[in-house]
């Protein structure tokens, strides 16, 4: 009995000593970092590098005969076609004609789109009557309607602008309607609790609240407008980037075709950059 107790005591003593000593004995092991990954870092020098590398590869491939000239003209040839176009004075005419159609069609289409989207978002009767209509017409490729537009609005600017207008209208309607739907109900209730007028609530709470969605609608409608530009200039257009591309295509002048397509792409980039600027300026309040 006695021995057992003393044995136990000794054990405890040893344990106590050990635990006192322990900090010195322990090995320090650093904690391995495992929180990395899944973070997208901005790499501003990569995009130009990719573009340059691709074009350089293409140029070298074309010159060495690795890429047949029949399949794809060299970038330098496309550039030459562009320079020729600029020298001939036609470049300005093409760009002017296209910009005019784009700006008029897209502006009217988008403004009408915001108006209709707001109406559908705000009034039950508009929702019930217009929303099914919009949903039914939205998926129709507007190119298919081009002949009809020609009959309705004439072969001149009318049908071209109508195509672009129609194409930009629907995505903006859907985006604005969704934006109105998503405005924080509590903010609207707050407005009501302070007795703000209906008009004030729409203008100061619902419209700014729907603005992010409206701007992304604009982004989509702008690219659709550029896509439709080529289609709209298919019939009876003397000038326009789309017309230039189509003529080049039908003549198999691939260098001009590439030059025209590059112009469209740059146009798209500029529009996207402008909308990005607008978003930055108008949506500074977002975190």
């Amino acid at each position, binding site marked *: 009995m006695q021995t057992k107790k003393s044995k136990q005591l000794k054990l405890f003593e040893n344990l106590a000593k050990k635990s006192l000593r322990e900090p010195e004995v322990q090995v320090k092991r650093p904690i391995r970092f495992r929180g990395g990954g899944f973070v997208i870092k901005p790499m501003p020098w990569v995009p130009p590098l990719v573009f340059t590398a691709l074009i350089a590869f293409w140029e070298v491939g074309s010159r060495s005969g690795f890429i047949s000239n029949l399949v794809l003209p060299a970038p330098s040839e496309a550039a030459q076609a562009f320079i020729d176009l600029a020298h001939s004075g036609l470049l300005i005419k093409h760009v002017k004609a296209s910009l005019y159609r784009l700006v008029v069609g897209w502006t009217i289409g988008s403004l009408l789109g915001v108006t209709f989207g707001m109406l559908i978002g705000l009034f039950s009767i508009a929702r019930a009557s217009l929303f099914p209509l919009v949903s039914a017409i939205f998926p129709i490729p507007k190119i298919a309607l081009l002949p009809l537009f020609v009959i309705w609005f004439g072969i001149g600017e009318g049908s071209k602008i109508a195509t672009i207008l129609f194409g930009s209208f629907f995505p903006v309607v859907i985006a604005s309607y969704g934006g109105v739907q998503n405005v*924080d109900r*509590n*903010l609207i*209730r*707050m407005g*009501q*609790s*302070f*007795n*703000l*007028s209906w008009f*004030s609530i729409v203008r*100061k*709470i619902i419209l*700014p609240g729907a*603005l992010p969605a409206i701007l992304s609608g604009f982004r989509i409608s702008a690219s659709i407008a550029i896509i439709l530009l080529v289609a709209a200039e298919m019939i009876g257009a003397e000038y326009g980037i789309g017309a230039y591309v189509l003529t080049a295509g039908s003549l198999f002048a691939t260098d001009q075709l590439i030059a025209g397509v590059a112009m469209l792409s740059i146009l798209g980039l500029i529009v996207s950059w402008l909308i990005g600027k607008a978003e930055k300026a108008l949506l*500074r*309040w*977002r*975190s």
Partner: protein
Amino acid sequence: MELHLNNIGHKYNNLDVLKEISFSIRQGEIACIIGPSGCGKSTLLRIMGGLETATCGDVYISGEIPSNTINPLTFVFQDFALLPWRSVEANISLVLEDHPIPTVQRKEIIDSVLARTKLSDFKKALPKQLSGGMKQRVAIARALAVNPAFMLLDEPLSALDSQTRELLMSDLIDLWQRENFTACYVTHNLNEAVRLGHKIIVLSRRPGTIRRIVEIPIPLEERHNHLAELEYSQQVLWNLMRDEALAADRELSNAD
């Protein structure tokens, strides 16, 4: 101004949310409503503020509405309800813009409420730059701007951490002493109720009915000297609420 509820009952579709609620809130009094979550506190407050119509019963006000009041019944919301695209100043301006107030006077009102809520330095800030406590201060400043006769506060401090809550609670007491508004203050925090309420209305779980009305006769500004009594009141309230809270909790987990 006094507010009276007479036999209020409310249903959402077929869900009974409130039942047979009657009480009055006297001039200059803060009535706290406590009850388990989902028992209809927010609904009751919305009914009192005219944002919802009760299925049965009636709410009315009596007494004189001060003539300088722009919006007699004014809400303060749990989620602050600030417009994120407007600065602090513009958020307050929002509730004045629909009224024929000269611009100079509007600016004066804004400056005055910002000073009263210690926000003068943050006039131009956007809500995203402010902490939760600051945001709720802005919402309180906005409420003060319309000179309310009656404030309806729906868990105004529930989204804040406990230190901020403590600070804002004493600010509210100071404010009440100066402005002497009448208020209905919804909370699920018993400590807030015993610190701020002249009268505490305890609701049962859904459908919410009045379980008891507890009056705390100690003046608000002296309550910090009577912590023992407050602790006792809080215990009484908790005893009233514990079973309800437990049952409400169970109910939610097997909700239909």
